[in-house]
């Protein structure tokens, strides 16, 4: 590359050539195309930015084979037919249809190329018209232009794949072996994504790994915490490792929008939706299911958004997410999705429908899996204007046998809540009152693990109370309900056991008039945070359900999210960038003591790294809990050491700051005194400005308020 000429040289050359530089308008100078005269353009690196964008520039072209071979005279007719077929699917570019002609025979060659505006349209056209029967002898064979090259490369003879030498992988669960038993979390703020240790003892987070532009939309931990998934334009990726975060696998899925792991983190579901350029066309969605470890696509689903929009609540535009709900616990054996009048249950051995057919349920609205067992709960609303009652049924998979069914009358809506061990299922039923003008709410409680699955009906004391939130105690037998009117609702706690009878629901207590609209149970049970988010500005009440007492009340102003760490020791409350101010997060102890507070502008996400379930048996856990004193001694000593060290450091730091400040003060005092005379001069000899001039004097002021004289007469005569 030629060295760029300096300004001096340019001036010298200009004067030699008799050019007045000031009259040259640099913007009008055009270099010949492709010539940069050795000057590297500033925006060159822009082009290098994303080579993947340019990969497959022919993605919008398809090749249609098996067309009739026609002579010149019939060429236009054939072209018209093809154009008619293919312009229904998408917009064919101008001159985008090209049918080559054999120069010797002047006949067509039996194939043509069609160029669409977008690769999505091309993909759709390929899908729709592959195997299209034009007539008996001409069945279209449609391929993407990009694939042709790939097909050409297929060797004629099969060669056995090379066996790669085995390289031991990293211990992906190293973080669990942390000596201080700390938990990790990931935060996203601005363009940075950071993984940190929650070092509650030192009252600060300790960085693990940080990366800018790690993800293009969000990050997500896998359910057992092994992987951190990032989402990019080209697809999703998972990261993990013993000490740092390396990319373990990539899952190609252009324009992926949402991802979802199976509970045992064996599979990853990715979702993308493609808005059609032509509003008449269908809005298409693509779902891929990958094997997390190998990165292989196990199954893909394509279709219009409407097909995936049935049932469930929440999610994103067009679909209810997750589309596929995983069942059967951590084994990832089944997944299911709801369709119109069907529930399709797939199993992961073959990735096909169980018994090759979906379960037909007329008008099914919603379904959910038991978190541990292969049991489906589904809800069908009332039909025929109330002639056919609504029902909730439990279905065993893979036998598809109905375990239990409950008919419900005058139902407006149903919501299902599973307890985390799959022991209980609560169905919140909104019913119409007799006038059909308003609704009231009751609960149907299923005891799944008991014989015949008994059902109990629970109604609130005040039937008209609105239910604001409901939550099961994880692994426990209790649940909490927020009910009542919005400004100060009540919170009730119930247990599935009562003292005398283990088979009856009993109320534990009702807390009146709480500023709360969300419930967050500790993952270990026993403790719960009654939170007032949104309208209540982040009121937090830390409540102990065993003792039925409030441990602490606090506020994290404007808090939008609350998350317990997986051990139930700490809680993170965060203000995400839905608010402009106060962005950041607080870490609290389980009993409501604020440990530390970090402010971050443009704060998007806070996620604790989940932990896999422990290997200890419940009996063993109980034993440890019983002998906690024995174990805790060691940790308490450590805690004390750390806190001593901390206060020592704090003192040091303060001392240093004070000393430094003293130095400044003395310096200033000296300078001030030095300049005293000069300042007086500036003031025309007026004495100084300082307050020292004043003297504090105590002045006693006596005020004579009133003087009056009075003559008193004494009578001596009486003596």
């Amino acid at each position: 590359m030629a060295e760029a000429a300096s300004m001096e040289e340019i001036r010298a050359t200009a004067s030699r050539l008799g050019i007045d530089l000031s009259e040259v308008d640099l913007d009008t100078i055009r270099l010949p195309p492709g010539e940069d005269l050795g000057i590297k353009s500033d925006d060159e690196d822009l082009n290098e930015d994303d080579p993947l964008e340019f990969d497959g520039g022919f993605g919008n072209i398809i090749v249609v084979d098996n067309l009739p071979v026609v002579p010149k005279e019939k060429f236009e007719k054939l072209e018209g037919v093809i154009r008619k077929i293919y312009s229904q699917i998408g917009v064919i570019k101008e001159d985008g249809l090209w049918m080559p002609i054999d120069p010797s025979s002047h006949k067509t060659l039996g194939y043509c190329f069609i160029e669409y505006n977008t690769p999505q349209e091309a993909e759709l056209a390929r899908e729709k018209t592959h195997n299209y029967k034009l007539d008996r002898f001409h069945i279209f064979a449609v391929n993407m232009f990009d694939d042709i090259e790939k097909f050409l490369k297929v060797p004629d003879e099969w060669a056995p794949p090379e066996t790669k030498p085995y390289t031991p992988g990293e211990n992906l669960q190293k973080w669990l072996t942390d000596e201080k038993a700390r938990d990790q979390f990931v935060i996203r703020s601005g363009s940075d994504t950071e993984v940190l240790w929650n070092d509650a003892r030192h009252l600060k987070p300790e960085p693990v790994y940080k990366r800018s532009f790690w993800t293009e939309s969000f990050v997500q931990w896998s359910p057992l915490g092994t992987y951190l998934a990032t989402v990019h334009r080209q697809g999703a990726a998972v990261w993990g490792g013993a000490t740092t975060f390396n990319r373990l696998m990539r899952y190609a899925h252009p324009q992926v929008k949402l991802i979802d792991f199976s509970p045992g983190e064996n599979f990853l579901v990715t979702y993308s939706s493609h808005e059609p350029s032509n509003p008449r066309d269908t809005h298409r969605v693509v779902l891929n299911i990958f094997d997390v470890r190998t990165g292989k696509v196990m199954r893909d689903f394509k279709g219009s958004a409407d097909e995936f929009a049935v049932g469930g609540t929440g999610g994103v535009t067009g679909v209810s997410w997750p589309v596929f709900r995983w069942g059967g616990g951590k084994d990832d054996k089944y997944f299911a999705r709801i369709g119109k009048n069907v529930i399709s249950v797939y199993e992961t051995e073959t990735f096909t429908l169980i018994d090759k057919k979906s379960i037909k349920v007329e008008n099914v609205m919603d379904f959910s899996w038991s978190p541990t067992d292969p049991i489906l709960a589904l809800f069908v609303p009332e039909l025929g204007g109330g002639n056919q009652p609504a029902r909730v049924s439990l279905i065993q998979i893979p036998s598809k046998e109905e375990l239990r069914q409950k008919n419900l009358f005058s139902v407006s809506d149903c919501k299902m809540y599973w307890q985390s061990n799959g022991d209980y299922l609560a169905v919140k039923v909104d019913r119409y009152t007799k006038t059909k003008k308003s609704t009231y709410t009751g609960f149907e409680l299923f005891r799944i693990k008991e014989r015949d699955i008994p059902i109990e009906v629970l109604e609130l004391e005040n039937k008209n109370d609105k239910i604001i939130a409901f939550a099961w105690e994880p692994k426990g037998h209790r649940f909490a309900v927020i009910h009542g009117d919005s400004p100060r609702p009540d919170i009730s706690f119930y247990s599935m056991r009562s003292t005398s009878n283990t088979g009856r629901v009993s109320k534990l207590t009702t807390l009146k008039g709480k500023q709360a609209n969300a419930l967050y149970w500790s993952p270990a049970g026993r403790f719960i945070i009654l939170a007032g988010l949104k309208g209540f500005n982040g009121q937090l009440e830390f409540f102990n359900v065993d003792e039925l007492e409030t441990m602490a009340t606090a506020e994290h102003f404007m808090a939008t999210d609350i998350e317990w760490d997986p051990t139930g020791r700490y809680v993170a409350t965060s203000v995400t960038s839905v608010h402009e101010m106060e962005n950041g997060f607080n870490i609290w102890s389980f009993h409501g003591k604020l440990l530390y507070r970090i402010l971050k502008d443009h704060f998007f996400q806070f996620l604790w790294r989940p932990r896999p379930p422990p290997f200890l048996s419940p009996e063993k856990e109980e034993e440890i809990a019983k002998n906690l004193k024995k174990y805790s001694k060691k940790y308490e000593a450590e805690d004390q050491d750390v806190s001593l060290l901390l206060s020592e450091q704090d003192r040091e730091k303060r001392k240093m700051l004070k000393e430094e400040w003293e130095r400044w003060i003395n310096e200033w005092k000296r300078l001030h005194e030095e300049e005293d005379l000069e300042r007086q001069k500036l003031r025309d000899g007026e004495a100084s400005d300082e307050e020292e001039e004043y003297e504090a004097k105590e002045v006693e002021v006596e005020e004579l308020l009133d003087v009056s004289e009075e003559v008193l007469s004494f009578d001596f005569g009486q003596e």
Partner: protein
Amino acid sequence: MRPILMKGHERPLTFLKYNRDGDLLFSCAKDHTPTVWFADNGERLGTYRGHNGAVWCCDVSSKFCAGCLRDSMMLITGSADQSAKLWNVQTGAQLFTFNFDSPARAVDFAVGDKLAVITTDPFMGLPSAIHVKHIARDPSEQTGESVLTIKGPQGRINRAVWGPLNKTIISAGEDAVVRIWDSETGKLLKESDKETGHKKTITSLTKSADSSHFLTGSLDKSAKLWDIRSLTLIKTYVTERPVNAVAMSPLLDHVVLGGGQDASAVTTTDHRAGKFEAKFFDKVLQEEIGGVKGHFGPINAWHSIQMVKGFDKLVGPYIMDISFSSGGEDGYVRLHHFDPDYFHIKI
């Protein structure tokens, strides 16, 4: 203690200033009349009528020049009506008007009150400028000529004050840079470092009582303490709201930051989200020690905070006052007097 609510302005407050003795409080607002109040009880003493635009800033001469001005102090105000005016504090009479071609923003008297610095905004293609004016002993001899005009920095200059012995002028504004100029020659002497300095518009700047250091507040949600001679960054106070006004206690090692989100965004959020309280920080340790809530209603955004060590001839030096306006559209000034406890805060 209950703050005193001073209702005298019809538009948002822009600036507050105590006189040296701390017995008078001058307030400027976007309505056109600067007002003087008794600092003790919040009674309105009078207004200064004559401006035809928002008044952005004011300064009052020290009492020690009083002799030359027939025993009364002088007030200088800078206004958006493209003028700065000199007033007789006592009578409210206009003494002189400095006319400019663009709105005047910051004003500051030099030690001795013989010079004043006035900044003007960038306006209709004119760049912002710092003007130094000579202040005559006798107002009748006052002229509008500038002793010195400094041009250069981009964007509005929000504050300009005199350095020690009137040798320098310190300016800060929209470009987030603090600059020290030679007040004789107009030469740029020092500039704050882009790395360590503020990242966004500097909204306020206040000097310590002995002019040895100064505090700047910025929309980057921080306030910074600088050495006035070397422009060394000494402290940074981080808060969660844009800082609109700063003040330093002359008695204790405390600084006060006032601020809040922009007035235009206020009504879109909860009333507490705006962060309109004044926050107290330990000057040395840079830790937050407390706050004073001051707002009522969601439409207030601008705080002006001043602290002063007061003096009373009978009781001697008395405690300082802090006052800060919480006037958005309502234009109230809130005057806070400290409880005795404040002077015994231990941290």
